[in-house]
């Protein structure tokens, strides 16, 4: 099978980016939108074509990774070489489908949502840049190529969060997102350096080959009581945790909601934020064989984040922030699944994690785009400004309801299947984590329906303009994603994307599915009782849980801790003293040397007075001194 056409998947978006970026000002805004969208349509078709071809060709029951091409980009040493290439394996092909699908939907949706915005062309240029970077990231053949695109994804995210650059909050959010992820990338980079130094390769196939040196002969070096491999894998995970906004590096994601809503759907819900999951999955054999300890860490961090974020989501009033915390929580699920997974036949968690990544991309993008449709209609992000919208916006209402049911895990929607697999995997590995994830499933159902009832039911406030349904460019993506949310659960994922490329045998467990449906129904019912009609119960509950409610409402004050560290410690306790030290001590020394010289020359310059009698006086005393010295020394 010849896959050389896949190079177009990388080339097209970058060409569109350059074209719109350079020419955007000179053409009609709508034209750049259409150009970006039609370009992406072609890319999507190519990706689907690639996926059909790839999943159609098994070699002895399993899928083989294919390196379509490798171009030398930069040579560090004889063995450490950065290539730019394309790697096709079940994981990357699956991501290809997810990214292009969601990106296409967002491109179409934005034609309506962003209509009339200043910088429409710039918006589409950035979307193309993002799509390019994200595709390059998942298709990377080696870890350094991945790092390159990882950074590019970060900067695209920076540019898009700060799209409304005249708004100070957007600028601050963009900066925060970039710096927090940059800090995480520092770990990633050091991790790459350690790993590549000891394995002497960047190449994914060599790194994850079960018979390769990286796995069969990991280094025995130890640093501070932990094996160097574990350090490397944990540091690499740190990069993933930054992008995927795992606790405690999650603080940038809620703020990132300052970007346009379709951007939140694409970058901060469906694609970029799962890059961390993708990263761990990409290196999974290494994690599983050489450093199971780091997988434990990943499981616990994922589990904690999912609970923590779910609790905060129950208290937020900004609908995009609720969704942002929900994203954190769902990515937590994916991390848990990877953390509890084994390799090969024990690889249920791995499969479940990516299955959830797949379904989550659709229903979370749907939720964000639905929220965008609502915001577009009422011109506010706050759920207190909303209510009773179901009669004004029927399509948005139905699709949003489908998405809520999906994320709550109601069968037979896709979220049910993927979450169920995660719970099974967690149950087999660690009962405590299972219990937490089961509880989080209930909280998820509650906060999602709190959101749903508050937007579409409850009491109708006085709207300035009567809200109306969004245009077709916005509703068509909603309908498409709703269909994807309903049916993507039936994709035979265990046959397609597994840790070793072989089909995985899975069973359906009523013992797990039953309780998980039960707790979802309980969550929905509680939300119904509290929020379906306007009443005083929510407030009285909030008052009775005052302390805890306030903590959760303020996101457990993590932002304040960071603010303290960055502003007070780094700014005032490091930078300012450094600047002071430099001006006063280092430069002061230099000035001191200069001033001393001036002083001494001032002191001796009087000797050059031009008066002959003084010169004779110096001359005679000098001669006398010499004579005296000669006599005395003899």
């Amino acid at each position, binding site marked *: 099978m010849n896959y050389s056409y896949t190079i177009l998947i990388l080339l097209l978006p970058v060409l569109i980016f350059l074209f719109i970026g350079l020419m955007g000002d000179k053409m009609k805004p709508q034209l750049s939108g259409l150009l970006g969208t039609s370009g992406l349509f072609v890319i999507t078709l190519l990706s689907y074509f690639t996926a059909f071809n790839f999943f159609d060709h098994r070699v002895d029951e399993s899928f083989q990774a294919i390196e379509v091409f490798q171009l030398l980009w930069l040579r560090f040493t004889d063995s450490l070489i950065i290539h730019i290439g394309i790697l096709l394996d079940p994981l990357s092909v699956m991501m290809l489908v997810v990214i292009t699908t969601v990106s296409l939907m967002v491109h179409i949706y934005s034609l309506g949502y962003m209509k009339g915005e200043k910088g429409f062309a710039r918006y589409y240029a950035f979307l193309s840049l993002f799509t390019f970077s994200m595709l390059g990231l998942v298709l990377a053949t080696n870890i350094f190529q991945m790092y390159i695109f990882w950074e590019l994804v970060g900067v695209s995210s920076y540019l898009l969060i700060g799209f409304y*650059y005249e708004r100070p909050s957007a600028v601050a959010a963009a900066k925060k997102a970039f710096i927090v992820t940059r800090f995480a990338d520092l770990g990633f980079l050091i991790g790459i350096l350690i790993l590549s*130094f000891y394995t002497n390769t960047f190449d994914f196939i060599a790194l994850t080959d079960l018979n390769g040196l990286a796995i069969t002969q990991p280094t025995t070096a130890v640093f501070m009581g932990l094996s160097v491999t574990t350090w490397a894998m944990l540091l690499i995970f740190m990069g993933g945790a930054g992008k995927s906004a795992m606790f405690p590096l999650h603080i940038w994601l809620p703020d990132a909601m300052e970007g346009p809503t379709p951007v939140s759907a694409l970058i901060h819900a469906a694609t970029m934020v799962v890059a961390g999951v993708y990263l761990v999955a990409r290196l999974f054999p290494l994690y599983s064989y050489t450093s199971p300890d780091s997988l434990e860490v990943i499981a616990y961090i994922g589990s904690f984040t999912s609970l923590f974020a779910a609790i905060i989501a129950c208290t937020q009033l900004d609908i995009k922030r609720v969704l942002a915390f929900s994203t954190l929580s769902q990515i937590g699920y994916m991390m848990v699944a990877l953390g509890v997974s084994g390799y090969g036949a024990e690889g249920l968690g791995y499969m479940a994690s990516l299955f959830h990544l797949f379904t989550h991309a659709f229903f979370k993008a749907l939720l964000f785009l639905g929220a965008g449709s609502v915001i577009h209609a009422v011109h506010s992000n706050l759920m207190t400004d909303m209510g009773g919208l179901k009669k004004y916006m029927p399509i948005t209402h139905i699709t949003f309801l489908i998405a809520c049911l999906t994320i709550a895990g109601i069968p037979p929607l896709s979220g049910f299947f993927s979450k169920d697999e995660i719970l099974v995997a967690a149950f087999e590995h660690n009962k405590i984590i299972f219990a937490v994830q089961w509880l989080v499933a209930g909280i998820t159902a509650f906060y999602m329906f709190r959101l749903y009832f508050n937007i579409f039911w409850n009491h109708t406030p006085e709207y300035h303009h009567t809200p109306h349904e969004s245009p077709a460019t916005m509703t068509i993506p909603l309908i498409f994603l709703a269909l994807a949310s309903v049916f993507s659960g039936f994709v035979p994922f265990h046959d397609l994307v597994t840790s070793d490329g072989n089909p995985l045998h899975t069973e359906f467990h009523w013992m797990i599915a039953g309780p998980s449906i039960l707790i979802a129904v309980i969550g929905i019912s509680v939300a119904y009782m509290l929020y379906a009609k306007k009443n005083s119960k929510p407030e009285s509950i909030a008052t009775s849980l005052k302390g805890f409610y306030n903590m959760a409402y303020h996101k457990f004050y993590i932002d304040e801790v960071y603010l303290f560290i960055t502003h007070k410690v780094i*700014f005032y306790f490091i930078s300012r003293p450094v600047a002071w030290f430099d001006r006063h001590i280092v430069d002061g020394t*230099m000035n001191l040397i200069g001033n001393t010289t001036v002083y001494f020359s001032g002191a001796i310059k009087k000797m050059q007075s031009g008066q002959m009698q003084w010169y004779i006086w110096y001359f005679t005393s000098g001669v006398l001194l010499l004579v005296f010295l000669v006599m005395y020394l003899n």
Partner: protein
Amino acid sequence: MNPLLILLIIPLLTIVGIAFVKDLTKVRLVSAIGMSGQLIFSFILLYLFYQQRNTGNTDDMLFVSTTMWYEAFNIQLKFGIDGISMAMIMLTSIVTFAGIFASWQVEHLPKEFFISLIILAGGVFGFFISLDLFTMFLFYEMAVIPMYLLIGLWGSGPKEYSAMKLTLMLMGGSALLMVGLLGIYFNSAPDGGRLTYDLTEIAKVNIPLAAQLFFFPFTFIGFGVLGAMFPFHTWSPDGHASAPTAVSMLHAGVLMKLGGYGCFRVAMYLLPEAAHELAWIFITLTSISVVYGAFGAIWQKDLKYINAYSSVSHCGLVLFALLMMNETATTGAILQMISHGLMTALFFALIGMIYGRTHTRMINEMGGLMKVIPFLSVIYVIAGLASLGLPGLSGFVAEMTIFVGAFQHTDMFHRMATIVAISSIVITAVYILRVVGTLLLGPITNNHYLDLKDAQWFEKISGVTLVIAIAIIGLTPFWLSDLIREPLAQMIQTLTN
């Protein structure tokens, strides 16, 4: 004739041309033509260089020519280049070209200004093609001295103080350097025979260890002062703040590279054993430089100070990488010199252009410039992204090569120093985004800014040239990396044996 001499003849002819024309427009025209010619010629030289290599010429140095200049002390005019000097020549001609266009609006004594600027550039070209320590030193001084006039006459702010400080500190460096060079000269024939300044000859002899240990610090620090090594960097913020745009560009862009280049080609290459013995001191100093400069930049409010401190950080990385003494790290160091040269020249050009419009360099007095001068602002963002190491632009390539190279050392000291240096990528992001956020984004703070005009044609030429160079290196780094690496294999072998 040796094609390298053309690199000196073109500036000379340009200076003569400027001296003979009368009005301002012609002065500009002659300078622009001359330096465009220089740029074109350096591309031709690159082509000739590859042609020589492709026809199987494997000499270390190409286009070598020797003329005895002063028989008594065996001083020669010896020229020749390898891949490293070739790359530095390209850098110099690009930055000079951009610098001429960035100073298009100099109206006070234009003749004298452009002549001094071109003498400076000529000195730099001469330095990079010299293979004789004495001539090298001569060209080095020729590049440093016009700086005094350029800052003192055409500068701004406390220009006399800054010009004096910069010149004196660099002269102090030169004094140390002179001692070092003479030390090398008098030990260049330990087994008897003729003393020599010839770099390639000295590389073949073993200078006694005691002499190496004594003269290495002189030579290294002497060049290090120019390379803004902590704690000898304080001429840089004041000097740049007062210097006119093109002077800052040339100074930070190419003149500071003389420091790094000299540290490697003279101090370390000729005194290898001492370099090994004493590396730990300078590694400590330079890794401090890297972080210290970055932290210092966070606190500054004047755009030129920010960039000057950022240069301390980036140039610190150059020396840091050189001291790692392996092929990869050294390649990274040279790449970083080129990358930093282009980036910082671009920064200073833009700062000059912004200052020309808003008449302030204080970031807290400005805001929202993206809306009124989008062209300059976008280029500023690109320069910023290059500086914080975004892939696809030159900074990333250089930094990653350095980090991978530095990490090849397995001992704790090198590892820790490397991790300290790597952490600068986060701090850099902080100050760059702070500047971009306050200066360019956000609402417009001053209503007078609403009618600012965006870049004029000559400003566009200057900015776009540098951006293109940064992007070419960032997108296709392999050729430059191979060009630089080619002579290094042999040099590093000398260093490690």
